[in-house]
């Protein structure tokens, strides 16, 4: 890349980001997904300003109020209130913070650890590689939610442990992807050239090879982001993730379970928030895959 930019431009090639955006924006769903994610992120950032009430404030005179368009509802609590009189809309807006934070932390942890393990497996073939890859096979043999539940059972239920558990569960995907792309890059001439020029191991790993393995990792990262939100909500729902009164969306659903037949709104809206967020990330992930996959280009 740096060598290319030093050659005086003849018919200037499009900037990589611009080229990427052209491919990405061809997929309408992906653009919609991105827009929704930006919106949710803005809501999460400004939750204190946007939310009409503090998320944990209990209004004792307004228990289980329905949303404003139903009889008995009012615009004071637009999406109704829960069993102890907390405003649903405010809790859901604040919950966006947790879900986005969970996704970001899980993907960062899992990606960082997975990339290292994958690079080590690719650079030191042989027994180190076998140990790493067999360990990943074992992790893949267990259903991901079950493995996450087991890790939480060991560490004890809490939001932090749930995130840690999910990050561990997603590790194999990142390790496998990094290893596979790093191995195919390692046979390329530019890597040999860099090696001959005297590049050290860390330089080869992180500066020469890794940037060329990023495309599939970015796609997997986006998809892991949505799965992390879903799995963290599932753990919260089972009582193994964030603990009440944290307004995490899965935990909101767990609290709402007993009112399922009496107050549909306490169940419906938190789940809808999960669905919309996860869907947006999946849409964007599909678009990223199309835009970043060199096989599909041109």
């Amino acid at each position, binding site marked *: 890349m740096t060598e290319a930019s030093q050659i005086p431009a003849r018919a200037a090639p499009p900037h990589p980001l611009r080229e990427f955006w052209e491919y990405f924006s061809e997929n309408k769903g992906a653009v919609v997904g991105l827009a929704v994610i930006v919106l949710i992120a803005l809501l999460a950032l400004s939750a204190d300003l946007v939310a009409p009430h503090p998320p944990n404030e209990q209004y004792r005179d307004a228990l289980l109020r329905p949303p404003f368009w139903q009889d008995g509802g009012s615009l004071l609590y637009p999406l109704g209130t829960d069993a102890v009189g907390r405003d649903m809309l405010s809790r859901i807006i604040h919950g966006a913070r947790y879900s986005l934070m969970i996704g970001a932390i899980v993907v960062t942890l899992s990606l960082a650890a997975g990339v290292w393990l994958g690079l080590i497996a690719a650079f030191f073939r042989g027994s180190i590689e076998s140990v790493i890859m067999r*360990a990943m096979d074992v992790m893949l043999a267990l259903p991901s939610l079950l493995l996450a539940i087991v890790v939480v059972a060991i560490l004890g239920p809490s939001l932090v442990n749930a995130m840690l558990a999910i990050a561990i569960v997603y590790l194999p995907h990142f390790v496998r992807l990094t290893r596979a792309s790093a191995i195919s890059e390692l046979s390329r001439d530019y890597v040999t050239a860099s090696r001959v020029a005297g590049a050290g191991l860390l330089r080869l790993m992180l500066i020469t090879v890794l940037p060329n393995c990023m495309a599939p990792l970015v796609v997997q990262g986006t998809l892991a982001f949505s799965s992390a939100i879903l799995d963290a909500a599932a753990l919260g729902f089972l009582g193994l993730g964030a603990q009440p009164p944290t307004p995490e969306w899965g935990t909101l659903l767990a609290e709402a379970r007993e009112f399922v037949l009496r107050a549909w709104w306490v169940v419906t809206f938190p789940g809808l928030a999960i669905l919309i967020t*996860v869907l947006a990330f999946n849409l964007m992930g599909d678009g990223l895959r199309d835009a970043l996959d060199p096989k599909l280009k041109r």
Partner: protein
Amino acid sequence: MLRFVATRFGIVIPTFIGVTLVAFSLIRLVPGDPIELWVGERGIDPERHAELLRQFGFDRPLWQQYLGFLGDLLQGDLGKSIVTQQPVLSEFLTLFPATIELSLAAMIFAVAVGLPAGIIAGVRRGSAFDHTVMAVSLTGYSMPIFWWGLLLIILFSGTLGWTPVSGRISVLYFFEPVTGFMLIDSLLSGEPGAFKSAVRHLILPAIVLGTIPLAVIARQTRSAMLEVLGEDYIRTAHAKGLSPLRIIGLHALRNALIPVVTIIGLQTGLLLAGAILTETIFAWPGIGNWLVNSISRRDYPSVQGGVLLVASVVITVNLMVDLAYGLINPRIRRGAGS
């Protein structure tokens, strides 16, 4: 073929050993030693504590404990539940048919809806039907199924009153389990209405558990169809003047189904994970529900045994799918054998 089978087993055995290591470490990674966990908050006097540690072999070196664990395992001894004092294996075997019944029903639903939807979407590429199927399947794929279950309960059990909220059969009926499968047992019992009650209890959980596999199957079938329909032999078949139904039904579908069958087989792990959530929502007395309860009761031997058994089921099914795939498709067999 023999070589193919041998390679597959060669991959499975280290995986299985790894799973036993995970299950073995589980109980030992929990803070506090196992005896302290068993006595719980009641406390225990130090002498008795040391005696119990010795009795259960927890004072031996870890590798000896592990070998002992493997030895017990080979004899089918997975330890006893702290709560019920029943052997873990027998508890698992009592509850497993309920999960199998639910998973099978979910899979039948997923295949029965997902396969035709995927085929039609692939054939009518770009049509409104295609777009709808793709949108619905992406939504299904993103669905938090624990919420989906609650929504269906609100609609079908609450508003419409069509289906019951939880359990496997109405409390009005009682009979000794013969096979453990409620649909079969209710028929065998000869009690009028029992079978109908069992079916009504099964419908919602099966739909909930089948939703994600349905989405995956519809998407995969569509893309497999698209790939096959672009092949030369399909164009030849068209040129020969064969009827479209024959081309799609006979020439295209048979080849498109090979990858789809694999995908269906590989959903087992997903189904068992989904069963944990589905069974919790519908109070379905299967292994998912049992595992979650065991964790909340801190019944670690049950969790350990359950994890081991679930992982074994997933590994075995994946191995069978692999072998079946090699059996249908000689190219895979040769590719993996060499």
